[in-house]
């Protein structure tokens, strides 16, 4: 079972107390963008076997959003970080590199 810790209220609980919010760090392409960019923003998602970055919401708890980096095969959670950011923090990326050398996810590696 996937166990997450909410960075906002400090509670550690299993996934049924949270709500998945889909892929993290999507860059929005709105009015004026090319059709290809808009299609990418709307439909194109990563579906990795391994390192993945997601948004989660502590739905039954404090109700706040946060980011999680986890492994889709082992459910290992590499780290949790604030929702108020556009990219995974450097120390978390280094930590993942230690455990999963040569990982890559979108433009991050």
């Amino acid at each position, binding site marked *: 079972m996937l166990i997450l810790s909410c960075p906002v209220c400090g509670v550690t609980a299993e996934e049924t*107390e949270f709500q998945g919010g889909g892929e993290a760090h999507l860059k929005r392409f709105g009015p004026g963008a090319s059709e290809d960019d808009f299609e990418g923003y709307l439909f194109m998602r990563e579906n990795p076997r391994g390192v993945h970055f997601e948004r989660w919401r502590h739905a*039954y708890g404090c109700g706040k959003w946060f980011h999680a980096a986890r492994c889709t095969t082992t459910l290992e959670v590499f780290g949790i970080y604030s929702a108020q950011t556009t990219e995974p923090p450097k120390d978390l990326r280094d930590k993942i590199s230690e455990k999963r050398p040569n990982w890559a996810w979108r433009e991050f590696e």
Partner: protein
Amino acid sequence: MSEPITALGGASADNGIATLAEAPLQGMITLRGDLTASAVKKAATSASGTAMPDQGMVTAEKDRALCWMSPDELLLLCPYDAVGETLDRMHKVLAKSHALAVNVSDARAMFRVSGVGGREVMAKLSPVDLAPDQFTPGMFRRTRLAQVPAAFWMPEEEAFHIICFRSQAQYVFDLLTVAAQPGSSVGVYQE
């Protein structure tokens, strides 16, 4: 003036492994705002007569309590009849702040689960580690009971107070009744 009544009219059950009872009318005030702002702190502490609770905790003093709901939300418990007057005082303190204090007493239901099997009844219904050294009196936890949101804390050893939405009171009471039915003790927290 209509007469206020609780959601289930004071339902109770004590034939199982824990004693269940719907609590009498309880005044509840939601306070949302920046919990580090001095006006918000003052409104909360002066209305409750307790200190500010730490993250995930509840502080209680006589018949009033302050519960930590999230980084920008507190729940103040007070006697049902004192809500209006308490709210007026809070609004005065908060007059110049970006904060919200609202009477939610009639939107909620409250239950009490007590007895040696209480921990087990709660553990059957929520995804919370309720081992005696992990969940102790003074802690406050917002979580779910089966399929609905709820919050609970322990006012003393072997007793839980549960708050849920009033519209879900019957569901929660039925859940508790089944989880506490006679002969359903698992004995996981007993030596």
